[in-house]
């Protein structure tokens, strides 16, 4: 493989980090895997370099190679890493250890895993100060408190004495950031620091990072798969694909003028809050990342690239600086801007469903689920207090035929529990559920097969939703036999039909789940649900653990299936854009209650419930020109054991109007015929407050965008 390193564009300041031609190889039983190849990048002081790419593209590997902390079987096979001209590759392990924590620090993806569970938080910060700043115990403790304060921790003293499990994910991530900044490092590497967090928390953390970095002027390597996050926070972005940089440049440049088809495809995959399934299908990138041990000889993206020519497949492209500071690895980069619809699917043929009055499939009224907290095991040793957890506390929802009801809300708000109540997997504590006019028993065990057939579910975790020991065919075939009344001799045929319906080859019937990718597993799960030919399909975060391109294709699939079969969906997600994309109706849930419900486009335009508003303003939008009003929800969702009195949202509500919020439960107000909000603030006032939530700062080319 020829070297395709090209000197990065000159920059005004000396780069803090200069990575040149970095290659990393993992030694495995199958042989060496070249996980990263000839990656060059430079990050200047105060710069935030966003490194994006799909899962497995090598982002983490790059980061770990930079700090020389690769897994035992990994090795840097070429290239150099200079930190302020210091050649890190030449350092001894002991010297490297001195660099770690003082000159380079890292923030890891899963904050709850990255904080030692049995050491108090404060100590974990203080020890860095002691080791690298030579402070004594007292000074170090002071420093720790100071750092906790810096990251906006309200009561540093108290937090310092706590343990990891006592803090929420967001707080832990602040702790990690505080730790990383304690020594005022030259380079900060953040590896997907917000992926594990709620959208609201993510927004707060991103703001914090942004503000702190302005203050500290640290160079940052920010790794994420979320293009929205890059757009919001990074100054430069590099798009990594299968271990190679495809495109790199300043954020506005790259988002405005994509010079690589991969970037184009990737951006097109992301659903937008302003466009629904009725308008357009999402882009998808065909194929998948090539396996590292079987990389194509030419351009590695060529097999998936619609504009690939023979030359692309033969010759490995070199990186070119197409515009100042904007590099691409595409031979045909000039053609890319002219082909904005390269990956676009045709206009959606999904017609609007029946009128909002369409027949009711599910009418859930005042459903509640209160879990009894009975102490078992050791944890119960120290457990006291109320013994009830009100996971769902009075939710009423109607799902109409052929429509999708989307449910959004932060983690822990009760979305899954509600869905499971409807499905009968947990028995609701009270409430009424009516399916096509027939009351539903609380438990699956009491529902006749004819009813069971009508409700099917697609689960969140693709790995757990298929039995690892059962073949795809057996998995889809079983509901056909149980619920579908399919004669046994036709089961095989139906299975193949269903596989085709979810766009899987028929031969997959013989595969076992571990031979499938995450997206494929979810397709099988969908096929399994479809096999019963349900009237109502409950999708509980079916896409959240998948890559954007896979998400897009799954959403397209769901939408098309709905069009073809007229199934109603209960679609649960915390990703507002996704919910917006697939739903006709949206319900916003917080702490087991419903706060806003209505047709999708109405819910996503003012007036919003303050909570909806906060969710929307926190959503990272992959468009650097969009300016969102900064509405930040502080703290995390209160525990469902101790529910605040009055309006449950008052503890975090940015628009709290006074004591009434704390004492009185708000009433429902109708905004439009089908759109209601549950808030003390009158609708008109809300409208005024929320006028400028999202604003696009660039001149609108098509006129379609604009103020909404």
């Amino acid at each position, binding site marked *: 493989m020829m070297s395709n390193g090209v000197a990065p564009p000159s920059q005004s300041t000396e780069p803090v980090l200069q990575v040149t031609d970095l290659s990393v190889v993992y030694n495995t039983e199958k042989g060496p895997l070249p996980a990263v190849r000839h990656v060059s990048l430079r990050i200047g002081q105060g710069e935030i370099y966003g490194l994006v790419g799909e899962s497995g593209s090598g982002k983490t590997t790059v980061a770990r190679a930079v700090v020389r902390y690769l897994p035992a079987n990994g090795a840097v096979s070429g290239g150099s890493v200079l930190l302020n001209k210091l050649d890190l590759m030449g350092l001894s392990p002991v010297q490297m250890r001195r660099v770690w924590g003082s000159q380079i620090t890292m923030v890891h993806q899963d904050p709850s895993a990255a904080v030692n569970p049995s050491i108090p938080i404060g100590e974990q910060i203080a020890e860095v100060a002691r*080791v690298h700043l030579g402070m004594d115990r007292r000074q170090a403790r002071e420093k720790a408190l100071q750092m906790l304060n810096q990251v906006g921790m309200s009561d540093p003293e108290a937090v310092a004495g706590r343990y990891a499990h006592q803090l929420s994910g967001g707080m832990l991530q602040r702790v990690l950031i505080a730790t990383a900044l304690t020594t005022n490092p030259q380079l900060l590497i953040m590896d997907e620091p917000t992926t594990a967090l709620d959208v609201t928390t993510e927004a707060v953390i991103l703001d914090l990072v942004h503000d702190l970095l302005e203050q500290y002027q640290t160079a940052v390597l920010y790794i994420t798969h979320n293009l929205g996050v890059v757009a919001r926070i990074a100054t430069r972005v590099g798009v990594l694909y299968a271990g190679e940089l495809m495109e790199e440049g300043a954020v506005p440049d790259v988002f405005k003028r994509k010079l690589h088809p991969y970037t184009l495809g990737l951006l097109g995959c992301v659903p937008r809050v302003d466009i629904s399934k009725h308008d357009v299908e999402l882009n998808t990138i065909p194929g998948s990342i090539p396996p590292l041990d079987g990389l194509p000889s030419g351009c590695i993206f060529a097999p998936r690239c619609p504009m690939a020519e023979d030359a692309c497949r033969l010759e490995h492209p070199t990186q070119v600086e197409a515009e100042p500071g904007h590099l691409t690895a595409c031979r045909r980069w000039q053609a890319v801007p002219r082909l904005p619809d390269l990956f676009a699917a045709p206009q959606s043929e999904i017609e609007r469903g029946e009128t909002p009055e369409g027949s009711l499939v599910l009418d859930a009224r005042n459903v509640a689920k209160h879990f009894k907290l009975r102490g078992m095991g050791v944890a*119960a040793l120290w457990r006291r207090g109320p013994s009830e957890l009100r996971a769902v506390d009075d939710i009423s929802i109607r799902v109409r035929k052929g429509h999708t009801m989307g449910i959004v809300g932060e983690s822990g708000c009760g979305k899954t529990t509600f869905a499971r109540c409807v499905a009968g997997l947990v028995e609701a504590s009270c409430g009424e559920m009516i399916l096509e006019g027939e009351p539903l028993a609380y438990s699956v065990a009491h529902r006749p097969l004819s009813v069971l057939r009508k409700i099917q579910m697609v689960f969140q975790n693709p790995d757990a939703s298929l039995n690892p020991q059962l073949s795809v065919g057996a998995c889809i075939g079983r509901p056909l036999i149980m619920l579908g009344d399919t004669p046994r001799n036709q089961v095989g045929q139906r299975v193949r039909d269903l596989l085709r319906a979810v766009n899987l080859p028929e031969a997959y019937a013989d595969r076992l789940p571990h031979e499938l990718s995450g997206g494929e597993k979810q397709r099988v799960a969908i096929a399994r649900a479809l096999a019963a030919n349900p009237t109502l399909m409950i999708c509980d975060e079916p896409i959240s653990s998948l890559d954007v391109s896979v998400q897009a294709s799954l959403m397209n699939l769901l939408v098309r299936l709905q069009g073809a079969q007229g199934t109603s969906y209960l679609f649960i997600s915390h990703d507002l854009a996704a919910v917006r994309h697939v739903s006709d109706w949206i319900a916003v849930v917080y702490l087991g209650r419903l706060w806003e419900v209505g047709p999708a486009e109405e819910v996503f335009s003012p007036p919003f419930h303050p909570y909806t508003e906060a969710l929307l303003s926190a959503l990272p939008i992959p468009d650097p020109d969009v300016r969102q009003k900064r509405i930040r929800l502080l703290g995390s969702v209160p525990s469902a054991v101790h529910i605040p009195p009055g309006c449950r949202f008052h503890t975090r509500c940015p628009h709290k109007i006074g004591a009434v919020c704390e004492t009185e439960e708000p009433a429902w107000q109708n905004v439009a015929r089908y759109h209601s909000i549950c808030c003390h603030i009158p609708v008109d006032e809300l409208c005024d407050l929320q006028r400028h939530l999202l604003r696009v700062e660039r001149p609108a080319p098509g006129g379609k965008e604009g103020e909404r």
Partner: protein
Amino acid sequence: MTTYLVRRFAFILLTIIAASLVIFVATRMMPGDVARVMLGQFATDQAVENLREELGLNRPAHVQYLDWLIHFLTGDWGVSLVNRLEVRGMVLQRLGNSLKLAALSLGIYVPLGILLGVVAALNREGPVDQAISGLSMALVGLPEFVTGLVLIAFVAISWRLLPANSSIDPDTPLREAFKYLILPAITVSLTSLGYIARMTRASTINVLRADYVRAAELKGLPRRQVLLKHVLRNSLLPTVTVVAMGIGWLIGGLIVTESVYGYPGLGRLLVYGIQRRDLILVQAVSMVIVTIYSFSNLVADILYGVLNPRIRLAD
């Protein structure tokens, strides 16, 4: 907390009573009769019958059991059927011996096992690890009677370094008693060492993989500090509970070791009791063993909670 403890205590009590019932039924079903065993083959049937009557062995089994249980729970452990002496004194004295042996064994194999386990984990898959794994497996594989016999043959008989027989006098001062305890303790340790080492190795490897250890390394902390503070603190948790749970075995399960060395521990007392069909003695000893087992499990759980802040402070 209190409800938890109350609940656990109730379960322990239930377990103990059920276990005593199991043992009672089992010993009752054993062939052989205490009166005959006591009076010997040559005593007349009349004498045996008299004795049975006197010992209350002719009462219905459930009466005997309940009578015994009630007395036991009120602290009256009864009089041995065989030698007519208070059982409690005998059992408690033996318990003392067993505890001594258990303590010394723990003192040997726990630190050593942890050390080996940690070293193996740090050299994961390397030659040192392979060697330690092989060694611990081989030690686990050697039955106590083999190690015991070999140790006696060399250490005690050929080299006369330590006593071959550990039937220590109850009045022996602890310092003196030590030399009688060493060989049995080593024998016990050899069987348990490998287990502890493997446990520790596995949990340490798990912890070494944890993100927070990676984070600690990347904080540039000295390696020793990472190991002692960040790794061991978490990786020893399962080991601690395994050790605590092993106490039950150390107290009542060392039948083979005790008989190889003639050590007067509870295990051997029990064997005697069984052989002599001394139901009262057997019941008392098994109650003690089962109780210790149950409580050491409880202690293991509580210890886990205490050492593990995740559980300690969970609300």
